[in-house]
């Protein structure tokens, strides 16, 4: 049996490039499956504490968060360090806080990663900008990096 990976796409396809988090996560899941991983894909508009239960039940080796970001010009992969510092808006969670919550409440020890894919337009509507579409093409490269980090 291959490595178990939980891929969590974050975004809203009705807010243009924000949907890139979902599209990238779907492409990444396909690539990882081709590489032999057992992938569980979750698509959400934002991170919620209940994801900790999914992680506890699946017991993945890796957890990969995928989100669209204004702060990057190409897709990036960074390791997530669990942190108990709550985000500024404390009815939301970020990946670091969610990982801390998973660890504390359910003993989840999976390595976790954040993929940020470029975005420039979060207005109302469907469809991605050229920049966001370009970012999706990095899914095979990011998948290869993740396979190398198992």
């Amino acid at each position, binding site marked *: 049996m291959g490595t178990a990976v939980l891929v969590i796409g974050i975004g809203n396809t009705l807010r243009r490039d*924000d949907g890139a988090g979902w599209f990238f996560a779907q492409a990444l899941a396909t690539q990882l499956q081709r590489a032999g991983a057992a992938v569980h894909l979750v698509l959400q508009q*934002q991170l919620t*504490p209940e994801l900790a*239960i999914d992680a506890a039940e699946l017991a993945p080796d890796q957890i990969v968060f995928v989100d669209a970001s204004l702060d990057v010009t190409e897709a990036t992969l960074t390791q997530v360090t669990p942190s108990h510092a*709550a985000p500024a808006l*404390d009815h939301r969670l970020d990946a670091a806080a969610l990982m801390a*919550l998973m660890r504390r409440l359910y003993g989840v020890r999976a390595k976790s990663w954040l993929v940020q894919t470029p975005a420039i337009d*979060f207005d109302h509507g469907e469809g991605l900008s050229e920049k966001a579409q370009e970012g999706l093409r990095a899914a095979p490269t990011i998948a290869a990096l993740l396979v190398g980090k198992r």
Partner: protein
Amino acid sequence: MSRTILIDPVTRIEGHAKITIHLDEDGQVADARFHVTEFRGFEKFCEGRSFWEMPGITARICGICPVSHLMASAKAGDAILGIHIPPTAAKLRRLMNWAQIVQSHALSFFHLSGPDLLLGMDSDPAKRNLMGLVEKFPDVARNGIRLRRFGQKVIEILGGRSVHPAWVVPGGVREPLSDENRSKIRRMLPEAFDIVGLALDVLKDSFDQFRDEEAMYGNFPSLYMGLVTPDGGLEHYDGLLRVVDSDGAILEPGLPPARFREILGEAVEPWSYLKFPFYKPAAIREAQGGRSTLHYPAGMYRVGPLARLNVCDCAGTPRADAELREFRRLAPRGRPVANSFHYHYARLIEILYALERIAETIDDPSITDKRVRAHAEVNNMIGVGVSEAPRGTLFHEYHIDENGILQKVNLIIATGQNNLAMNRTVKQIAQYHIKDGKVTEGVLNRIEHGIRLYDPCLSCSTHAVGQMPMVVEVYDAGGKLIDRVKRE
């Protein structure tokens, strides 16, 4: 010299708001206001759309309680079609609405107010949040997550997804419930019952620590409104509007909800985007300088869990009724529980009630019937849909043309109906805690907690960028900043 204290933003609520506290010449609280600073405009931009689209559009008002808007909107659609939906469709809608009550109340109690109740009102604000709760009380945090997940899972099982399910439609629901999915719901119930039982014990055991809060957090006479069954039982989906006064006298025994305009008015103020609904028969018309002015705050009423438990004669399920009897002992015999601090307790009782009703409904042999949708054309030009959202009574009123295109939309949301009471609560807490203009972190949080009691849902924003610290600024009468307290 009069001064103003500003709390901006109010945290751990859904949406964006601020609080101003106005001090008089002696530094005592003269007034306090809860300002809703965001503008959504749904009523206006829905004009010109088809009423068929409204469940999908209005569900986007909120990511926490989309189900409530689905219910009210679909019911307004049912009224436009002039139909009675199949009985199984009504039962399935009720199931989803109870699941919504469970998940939303669990979020409010465990995640939004839990940090205040368990970590303390004066604890470090950097840790007084969900992550602080996770660190110090992992069992409680775990239970909150599991209970909320129960509600979300039931919604997902019924509607295909937990947020914005496109399942409730005018005429009924899109898909029936399968035997397999019924079994899934049944299997999840025992744990949910255990968790709410534990939560009730924890909350009731803590009452002694919160005697001040009990006395000062929205403890004032008001009216209460909610839906009841035809025989006076607790109701969340259908039924009749009942209004009770602060002595427990029934002012409206059972008004058909579509006639809500006979008793409810809506006022606006220039300092908030949130409307101020009021009970018209209690508003006072005053003569001033030859002109007649309506003193609408006299028609203040509360909605939501506390109000629903105050207006009903009984819950109608065994365990919730046992808790309701205990709840009612918090007030003098025959009178409503007037203290908004007990919204917390009322929420937990409603979770228990919702679980009992879910258990009962999924055992109903007809719940898996396949006939779940009625079909019709436009038969009425006005449709009103009313249901009980977690935070209180929700009204959708649509006026359409002969093609079903919306000409006018009016939405009266639960949070708006608590607007007058929230303002009154903020003032009461501020008056108790702020003496001579001195403001501390603990005072700020207590004032915020006063708002959290009502669990206001002002909106859900997908992208809020950057830091949103709480700032309290004290101004003199000339508008000069003389003090500033900032929470990073």
